């Protein structure tokens, strides 16, 4: 690797990301504690998160070693491989919690839908990098339909969260790239219609229930609404300064559900209060802005689109997860990057950031 490349690296992004990772592990340490008669008992979530983080950092370094423009060539084969795996899921997949999402490879299980996020992102970047003109109907539809293929397979697993995330990343990238005025207007009109269609035809009862409960959590305080109510209590009870590290009663006494994964940020809010939450939101925004700066500085359209894809990948997860935890979004099983526990998610996050750093490093390089 050229040594000069390192001087171009986006150090701000690296700093934000490592800081978030450290905050996440610290928070998981606290969230792992449960109060028992004798004091606090910790389970091993935070230790595992550290190991996953190290794996992620390795993958990130790996993702920085090659020229990102190679990805442009790999986009289609990667995409087709993903489709193949997704097709295998209904045949060879194993069922966990009533959904078939995993393929067992013997020594480990992989989730093709995770792969789909990456391959759609890369392929969309390639497709959208073709020219600078706002998309007309034809191109818009082409991009949309190609990317809808994996989505159609994923939603039957069923996995609404991932499907939604892929579509949102795509939408973000398309919006960034730009649409012809009439296409944009038509889409804006179509969204409510598609929404209504989804509500009446495409959704499971439990999903509909979640949205209803989101609108009024008190209708089902013991069931679906329990998560939202307890999470709001946890965060709200942090008040200005929070209850202090490892002092959150909501999490330690197990009132807060999913406190390692989807609701991890509620533990943070309870223990660090308004001050901590504003700091965390600020950190996330700086993180997003540093990705954004790479997207703007990228030397080519493909790199820029790639980074924009990563930007939206993080943006939507932050918005949906934190929004859910603070009660302004319905409960959808989407983790918060760096804060929620999750092995493969951590690895994917670091890998994607490796790509962003890759783009930032090579922003002045023209020869491959």
């Amino acid at each position, binding site marked *: 690797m050229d040594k000069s490349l390192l001087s171009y690296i986006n150090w701000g992004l690296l700093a934000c990301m490592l800081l978030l990772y450290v905050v996440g592990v610290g928070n998981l340490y606290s969230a792992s504690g449960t*109060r*028992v*008669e004798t004091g606090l008992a910790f389970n091993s979530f935070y230790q595992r998160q550290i190991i996953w983080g190290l794996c992620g950092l390795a993958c990130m370094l790996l993702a920085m070693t090659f020229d990102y*423009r190679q990805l*442009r*060539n790999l986009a289609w084969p990667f995409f087709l491989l993903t489709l193949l795996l997704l097709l295998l899921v209904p045949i060879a997949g194993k069922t966990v919690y009533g959904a078939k999402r995993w393929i067992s490879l013997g020594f480990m299980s992989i989730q093709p839908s995770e792969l789909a996020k990456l391959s759609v992102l890369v392929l969309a970047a390639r*497709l959208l*990098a*073709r*020219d*600078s003109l706002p998309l007309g109907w034809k*191109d818009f*539809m*082409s991009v949309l*339909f*190609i990317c809808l293929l994996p989505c159609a397979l994923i939603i039957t697993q069923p996995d609404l969260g991932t499907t939604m995330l892929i579509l949102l990343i795509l939408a973000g990238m398309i919006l*960034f790239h*730009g649409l012809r005025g009439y296409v944009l207007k038509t889409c804006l009109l179509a969204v409510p219609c598609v929404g209504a269609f989804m509500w009446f035809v495409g959704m499971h009862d439990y999903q509909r229930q979640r949205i209803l409960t989101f609108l009024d959590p008190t209708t089902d305080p013991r069931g679906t609404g329990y998560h939202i109510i307890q999470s*709001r*209590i*946890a*965060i*709200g*009870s*942090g*008040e*200005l300064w929070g209850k202090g590290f490892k002092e959150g*009663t*909501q999490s*330690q*006494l*197990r*009132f807060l559900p999913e406190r390692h994964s989807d609701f991890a940020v509620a533990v943070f*809010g*309870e223990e660090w209060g*308004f001050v901590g*939450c*504003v700091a965390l*939101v*600020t950190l*996330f*925004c700086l993180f*997003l*802005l540093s990705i*954004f700066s790479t997207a*703007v500085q*990228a*030397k*080519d*359209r493909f790199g*820029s689109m790639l980074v*924009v894809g990563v930007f939206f990948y993080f*943006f939507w997860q932050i*918005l949906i997860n*934190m929004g859910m935890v*603070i*009660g*302004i979004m319905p409960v959808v099983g989407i983790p918060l990057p760096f804060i929620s526990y999750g092995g493969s998610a951590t690895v994917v996050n670091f890998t994607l950031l490796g790509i962003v750093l890759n783009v930032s490093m090579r922003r002045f390089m*023209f020869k*491959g």
Partner: protein
Amino acid sequence: MFRKAKKSLLGAGEKPARKGIRSWLKIQVESEGYQPPRGGVILLQVLVGLLFFVFVVRFWYLQMHRGADFAQQAQNNRLRIERIFAPRGRIMDDQGKVLADNRTAYGLSLVREDCPDIPATLAQISAWSGIPLPQIWDKFRQDRFKVKSFEPLLMITDIDFDLVARIESEIYAWPGLEIVVRTKRSYPEKDLFAHVLGYVAEANEQEMAADSALAMGDLVGKQGLELELEKQLRGRKGLYDVEVDAHSRVLGKFLREEPRGGKEIRLSLDRDLQEAAWNALGGEAGCVVVMEPDTGKLRALVTSPAYDNNLFAAGISQRDWDALRTNSRYPLQNRVIQSVYPPGSVWKLVVAAMLLERGVNPRESVQCTGQVKLGNQIFRCWKRGGHGAQDMQSALINSCDVYFYQMGERMGIDKLEEFAKASGFGRPTGIDLPHEKSGLVPSKEWKRRRFGRPWVRGETYNVSIGQGYTLVTPVQMAVFVSGLLNGGELLKPQLLDDAQREVKGRIPAKASTLNFVVEAMRKTAGGGTARVVGRKDADMGGKTGTAQVVKLKMAANDRRLRTHEMEYAQRDHAWITTWGVKDGKSYVVVVMVEHGGGGSSVAGPVARKVYDHLFGPDPNAPAAPVVQAPASPGERAD
């Protein structure tokens, strides 16, 4: 479609791919000077700005604006308040003998949330206790929603100790079940004080709604003093702050408030005297009131038949309840305060006092020929041959009906009504027991309202000798007689040892009037109809009464039927109101025997036995108990 899309997107702007992996992997270099789309750049900046703004506002709302509220909710989540039962105050007699006690009882409760298999668990409860399963299910369904799912639901109570031991050894296999210890009320004297003490039972929904301190399973007074003194007896529960997790596991307990036991109550009643009076009644339906005329304190308050109030305290079965409710002798009725009777001749004390106050000369005589005619109606004296010339005192001593017919007629019903009401009749005495009856003092106005007909003169005759519509409770009678002795004060009958004397009214009569009536009672006990209670070693007074329940029943030969010849429900009520003073202690004893027959022959001996207990046996009494036989066949001393 797939191909077409590929073509349109890949076809232009890209060089046709050359053959071979190497060339395929070759990086395509774009032209210099890439500028990101302006709209896209703004979009991203706006999105990040919005994210920041919305989240900070929301966090401010949750943590600052409503933070205190949520902090309270988190606290409520964390801490659960557990009650510590306060022992209910015991009730004792004047000597400290315990009449209402607390005992430990074991129960089995079910925490629904911790119970994985409710049907099997209920079946096991049934197997242990021997209570049929459907009954257990009924109890479960009935009480299920009265407690929260993490709170114990009391399934069976009062488990005997052997069974507790057995359940204890097997309970580990039944998560959600736990043995709970509660105190239960017990009444060692059972029937003897049943009506005075009443009983406690588990609070029902109305009681819980009305009193926030009550929770499911709490005992609350339902009758008698247990009800009347509920506030003092109950005490105050203590509180534990219990730190729990979301699965209700208890992690720590902190005492927040000590329980405060209820007040111990000492009654003015004397358990031994109560028993003596109970035995004296000998199972007859009736009642005995023993009262101190100077203080108003009650020394005995017996009503018979009674019931075992422990049945209620333990949770009465439907069968026992039905048996009590439908018993023709009304064991649930507290006859001292809840039953009203015609007073019969004891009423003559009231009428005599009224006559004196209205200026009647006590020496004025009335000729008793055994009957008085009013129109075509004949009003008889109890003595068929008549008493001859009777002044007021001899009319009281002999209980001459004709004297009172005529005098009552002369005064009229209005004056009689006014005096009787002022003397405490027709209204409750204010005793500390629930559901006291008022009795009835009839008047012209009352009759018009009640029957829509005017008062007739014959009715005044009847009322003058304590018949007709007049109804009194035995305790009213005791208060009145006490008033005669204490200078006219109508005292509230007190049940508590430390009760203050409380004057509820005055008999509207001069001291001389009261003295006259008291003297007449003394003479009646000395040699008149109440001589059954007379004794040499004490100053005694009395007045008997035989109150007709139905119109006079005449046998074919124009004589009154004897008591044993009549249906029980048609027999006369026997009354005696007495007072006795010995060694500076004075008592008023009122005995009423329902459908007992003659006052002197049935109620008298009961009162006598009570005095034997109060004053010791009469040293001058004949060996055989004194039972006054009717003076002559067909007549009964009244």
